[in-house]
């Protein structure tokens, strides 16, 4: 399974902060495929899945943002009742602690992509190696995304 990386941006909770970040990405011609905000009162971490990670990294760094790239798991989730539960239950049984997760739709009438952030990606990958899950790579996400 090839790694999927997301870009995380540190943001103090000030009005206009998210717009400032998305503005930089838009200007650089970057396509945001997915986004999630982990907030803790006075500050937060905004996570993006983008079509061109290196370019986004460069653009945000140039503007002085505090960023970090980290690997996440991208798993195909069946668009049926219990689809999420099947994955969540598996992760629970494997003792993998999910820090954050968010979903991305796939092309119409298809399944969804579940983005999962865990403390130790390598270990999670190892534990899930033989499970009947479909992990998506960065190019696959771009292709499959709805």
């Amino acid at each position, binding site marked *: 399974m090839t790694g999927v990386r997301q870009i995380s941006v*540190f943001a*103090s909770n000030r009005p206009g902060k998210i717009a400032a970040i998305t503005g930089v990405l838009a200007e650089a011609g970057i396509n945001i495929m997915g986004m999630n905000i982990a907030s803790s009162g006075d500050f937060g*971490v905004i996570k993006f899945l983008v079509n061109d990670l290196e370019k986004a990294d460069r653009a945000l760094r140039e503007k002085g*943002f505090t960023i970090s790239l980290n690997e996440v798991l991208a798993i195909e989730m069946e668009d049926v009742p219990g689809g999420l539960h099947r994955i969540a239950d598996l992760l629970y049984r494997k003792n993998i602690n999910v820090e954050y997760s968010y979903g991305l739709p796939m092309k119409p009438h298809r399944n969804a992509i579940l983005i999962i952030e865990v403390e130790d990606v390598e270990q999670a990958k190892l534990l899930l190696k033989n499970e009947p899950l479909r992990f998506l790579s960065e190019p696959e996400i771009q292709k499959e995304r709805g």
Partner: protein
Amino acid sequence: MFWQKEIETLSRDKLSALQLERLGRTLARVYERVPFYRKAMDGNGFRPEDLRGLKDITALPFTTREDLRAGYPDGLLAVERTEAVRLHTSSGTTGKPKAIFFSRRDLDQAAELLARCLVMTGTGPGDVLQNMMTYGLFTGALMMHYAAEKVGILVIPSGPGNTERQLDLMRDFGTTVLHITPSYLLYLADYLARAGLDPARDLKLKRAYVGAEPYSEETRRKIESLYGIDIYNSYGLSEMNGPGVAFECAGKQGMHLWEDNFLMEVVDPETGRPRAEGEAGELILTTLNREAMPIIRYRTRDITSVISEPCACGRTHRRITRIAGRADDMFIVRGVNIFPQQVERVLMAVSGVAQNYQIILDSYDQMTVRVEIQREVFDGHVEHLIRLKNLIIDRLRSEIVVRPEVELVEPGSLPTFEGKGKRVIDRRTM
């Protein structure tokens, strides 16, 4: 070990009598020779011959930093300029510097006091002192240089910088004692580690005199264990000779202030009224044994308290506690006196945060500390940031008693200050 055992262990009665005698001489001298002090005494209806006891000094006004600046370049000189043999200046962040003159006898006295400190902390003939402070207008390096020579220590006047050469000198001449800033000492430890050297094995260091920059107790312990050496806290200011005004003995429990040369008072920094014995307040110093430029009731702006209990080392000169902060910076939250330096010390000991911070006071019972995170520690995990924030809150609460709010902010987002900037934003209506 004593340098001047008799005077260092003089009975309190005799010490007080000596202080009174010297204070009388000093007041008479400045009344006669320094218009600034004559005017101050006349204005308070005080004549030097009115002096009966040490407490009478409270009838005189304070000398402030502004007074010294106003007297620049030589308005407070009590001798002819031709009798002065050394000039030091101390630069403020703004405005004119303060110029301090020394006669030959003053320099000798300053060296005697610092010689007491050296011998008190175990340094003596046979030791090799590498003086890594800046030689120049700043008092530190030169005063130490003369004191060490007086004691009979081999002095290497290396000055700061050029770490490779410093290391060569240390190894080639078997340096046992350093005079150095804490930041350079920490840098040096890092440098040694990268060079694969173990100071305890590869160097002969026994102790270091650390000055010119404030450092925390934690930093002291860290340096002591990194090098396997002793660090002694000291207190000095260029207006009062520079280093060696007060120094820790081997007991490391407060700094003996040389009371035969300085008269100390501790006052409320707001009102100027004396504090009860042992209470913290602003240290006020009067020179008792200076010719060229005596200074009466100088407001050091440094906050400390006096330890009157006798010390196990046998010295009778009372000790002062480590400087808690600068009087100008003090603020009060929930009735607790707090100094930005305390916050700074805590932050310095937490890895992952930058040195830049801001304190916001919105009410009398709540303070908010804004702290910049370091770019390198950001790994995208919000949990790690929350852990960092809680660690800072816990450490601050144990240092300043009050539990502050802590806001983590982006690196570079807080205003930076040149030198001692104003980091406290007080929004309360006073």
